[in-house]
């Protein structure tokens, strides 16, 4: 995994983490909704920001699978290496 991707991704995610979950250490297993308490509306914002940041398109089916930070990283990585 490209460390640059991880950093850019975490920078996007951190914009939407509410105060109550800011202290949580992010790992690949961290769930956007249950762990980071990111609301479902902001989850869409994250997807749009990721599309812009990496100049990729995320389909609705792909979006549904991006429930954890690790799955998001894998998705971006797979799109950039095609």
């Amino acid at each position, binding site marked *: 995994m490209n460390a640059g991707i991880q950093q850019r991704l975490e920078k996007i995610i951190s914009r939407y983490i509410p105060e109550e979950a800011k202290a949580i250490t992010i790992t690949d297993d961290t769930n956007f909704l249950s762990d980071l308490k990111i*609301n*479902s*509306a902001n989850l*869409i914002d994250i*997807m*749009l920001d990721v*599309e812009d940041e990496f100049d990729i398109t995320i389909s609705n089916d792909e*979006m549904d699978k991006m429930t954890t930070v690790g799955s998001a990283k894998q998705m971006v990585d797979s799109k950039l290496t095609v």
Partner: protein
Amino acid sequence: MSIGIDIVDLAAVPAMDAQRTRRYCEKVCSAEEAEFILAAEDSQKVLWQFWALKEAIYKCTFDPHQPKAFCAREINIPIAFFSAKGGFECYFENAPLYLDLLQQDNAIIASASIRREVEFYRVPYQNRDLLYKTITKKAATKLGLPRVALQHNEQGQPGLWVPDLEEHIPISMAHHGRFAVWGI
């Protein structure tokens, strides 16, 4: 559940340009809904109205025996709702549902319920603990019973446990930005 409530504080949502609004719609709406939203004078506000209604319907129709994650684009709002006056009756999975939408202090509140009349209360939001205390206090007053406890089931759905009645009363609650709302 028999009730679903959602709130969107328009002062707390990030501003979106026309292109981002369109892309957002593509991710959360049907083609018909997106067309309606994008043709509206204030597309962003109408988008959040749709969003709040979808969340309210999801909460109201949530089946704890067959739990499903929220997927906004799988819940379609009848466009006729927006030309109806007052509450609106429609069917979701063959069950009648009453939808309503209102705006207070730049916040959108949506409700979905199996009953026509929904009682809901909007309060300022500071933190979760304070919200829970406010809800139990208000519910105890409303029910005229001193002991009321707010509980969540395994799926995270809130309800009021009233030991004196040995009854579990479903409620719905949401918070966003400056406000929280809960309905019974």
